[in-house]
């Protein structure tokens, strides 16, 4: 492809512009909404000319929602904190549990290893409600209901299979010779795992962790069914703006922006890992 004809360049440019428009427009529009008052949002016809205001964000951050009926307490910051806590802890636990297992599946082929690995991955594809509904009863009996611990455990349902499969792929890609050489030099199994295998699989672990974090962050139904109000993540918290005295659309929009900002920032910061993670490690981007 050397001298591309002008007409094709124009067509390509137009196509890319259209694609960008479709995928970026909603985000841009919500951002605009989030810096408007209810009054300007409800204006017909809609207009991009308005005096920007940050009172929606201010209301969310201070937790004071001004409505017709007076000041309402909202705890959106608490939702944000819950999302952060749940996603981070779930991924941390998922890595601690998943990476050694992935290593075992990759290196130490053992009786039933393929079947077990397959079973673990298939958890990723089970309908979540199938497990969640009965789980409410067991959580009650085990005292896990309304605990962060219980939620973090259930989040393994999303996090663990991802980590296991992506990281396993990375371990399999590392030539065993390196580890062999290291062990010949008189180092033990754990030292080999820690000093050789882990660092070499580093990018894979990062990719898996990142992707798992995003899936955990975006989850909606797990906490909804299993946790009390003070442990709900942002995906549920964003629904709390509907009150008997009306909907504050600007605050809904600001809530959405605050909720998606962390995953956006992560994606921008660590795009390379993300791309690898998204292909479940099957393709090296």
């Amino acid at each position, binding site marked *: 492809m050397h001298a591309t004809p002008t007409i094709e360049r124009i067509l390509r440019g137009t196509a890319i512009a259209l694609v960008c428009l479709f995928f970026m427009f909603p985000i841009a529009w919500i951002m605009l909404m989030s810096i408007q008052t209810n009054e300007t949002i409800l204006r017909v016809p809609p207009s991009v000319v308005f005096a920007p205001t940050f009172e929606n964000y201010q209301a969310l951050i201070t937790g004071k929602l001004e*409505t*017709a*009926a007076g000041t309402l307490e909202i705890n959106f910051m608490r939702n944000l904190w819950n999302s952060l806590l749940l996603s981070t802890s779930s991924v941390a636990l998922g890595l601690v549990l998943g990476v050694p297992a992935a290593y075992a599946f990759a290196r130490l082929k053992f009786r039933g290893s393929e079947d077990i690995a397959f079973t673990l991955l298939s958890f990723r594809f089970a309908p979540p409600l199938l497990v969640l509904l009965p789980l409410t009863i067991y959580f*009650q009996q085990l005292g896990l209901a309304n605990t962060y611990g219980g939620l973090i455990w259930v989040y393994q349902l999303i996090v663990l299979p991802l980590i296991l499969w992506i990281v396993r792929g990375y371990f399999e890609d590392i030539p065993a010779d390196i580890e062999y050489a290291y062990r010949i030099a008189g180092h033990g199994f754990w030292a080999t795992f820690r000093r050789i295998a882990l660092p070499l699989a580093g990018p894979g672990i990062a990719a898996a962790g990142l992707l798992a974090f995003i899936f955990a962050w975006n989850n909606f139904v797990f906490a*909804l069914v299993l946790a009390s109000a003070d442990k709900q993540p942002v995906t549920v918290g964003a629904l709390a703006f*509907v009150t008997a005295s009306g909907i504050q659309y600007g605050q809904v929009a600001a809530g959405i922006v605050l909720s998606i900002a962390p995953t956006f920032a992560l994606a921008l910061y660590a795009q390379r890992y993300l791309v690898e993670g998204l292909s479940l490690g099957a393709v090296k981007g």
Partner: protein
Amino acid sequence: MYEKEKGLVDAFMRGQMSRRGLIRGLGALGVSTATAGVLVNLAATRALAADFDWKKHAGTTVKLLLNKHPYTDAMIANLENFKELTGMDVQYDVFPEDVYFDKVTAALSSGSTEYDAFMTGAYMTWTYGPAGWAEDLNQWIHDPEKTNPLYAWEDMLPGVRKSCAWNGVPGGALGSDDAKQWCIPWGYEQNNLTYNKRVFDANGLSVPTDLDGLVETAARAKAAMGSGYGVGVRGSRSWATIHPGFLSGYASFDQKDLTVGADGKLAAAMNTDVSKEFHRKWVQMIQDSGAPDWSTHTWYQVGTDLGAGKSAMIFDADILGYFMNGPGNAEAGNLAFAPFKANPAAAAPTPNIWIWSLAMSSFSTRKDAAWHFLQWASGPEHGLFGATAMDFVNPVRASVWADGAFRDKLSKSYSGYVEMHDVSAPGASIKFTPQPLFFDLTTEWAATLQKMVAREVPVDEGLDRLAESVNGQLKEAGLG
């Protein structure tokens, strides 16, 4: 901190000053209505303490599961008084309404001991009661050892009180002698008309008095408004679409959801000729002058559109109109209220009602303490505080409705509200047949309405099919 104020309040309690005089006096001291209310309630609470051992459960903590609602806000605003009165502590989880009832089901079906009491509607107790999740509160209400003599249970509006009681027999009459009190009414909603006086006046429209008038006025309003629509009613695929204006109008024509045979078997009754006629008009009203996105409308879209001046009127919960008439809405102050009977032959309006109620969890480990909270929260003093100082409307107690300050407050800013309530309250009750398949039936009914409005099925055929399907489900569940 509030010495002067407390002096005034005590004078009021000694009977030296009227309630209105007191509120005015407190206003002069720069005390907001809500704060004044809390102070009055503090004094009243002290008076309550004289006759009953409120401190019996001091030191106990009860936990509540609450829906995000002005009733909840009013209760939380007054909670310190309860804590002082009883020495108890109260914790609560508040969920947005979109997920609230799922949350209750999740908590109760798992036998969670986390919550001692929770907010509910009467319809929900038709599941919770038989499932063994909620207590029969008669055990407490009629026990003088456990209930404050000033609680005045009989003060609760009879239609409302009875609508929360059911004997658990599918098809059994609400409020029968053997009924169990699954929940206590807290605040309730009648379904009537709220209309935009500005739009009505500007276009020479008069308030409709029956269904035909409603259909016609809605069409004329839509034509006159240009960008808005004539009448707001709910339309989402949910029980919530059936129970407000729709069922109130339906009941006005003496129509039933189900019939109960002599053998106690239930059968669908929504495919009678009168019902079909009613459905045809209702569907036509939505097609001609309803919201363009009617089929996703829940109560808050219905309300928001009215408050924003996009709809000329709503046939829905009166308190929805009440909130849309408050500050922060474009049409604040322009809304007015009218009682409505769909059937011209009917003597008086017979609105179906929604009752936000309080229920006690069967899994609670502190039931007597929870009852202390429930009787305080549903008691006359908190009711009066909430109604006058906060937005705790509609009150369920006759004594609150008789209170001059409350009536004045309503009449001042809510044109026609008191009259509307007084006219329709005698006929107000739940018009559904209580039975465990309530949600299956109403969801399918709403889906059928959606299909009719979208012209996917003719009204007659749709209703016949609905009745057939409901009968099948009743049989399958051993009820039909």
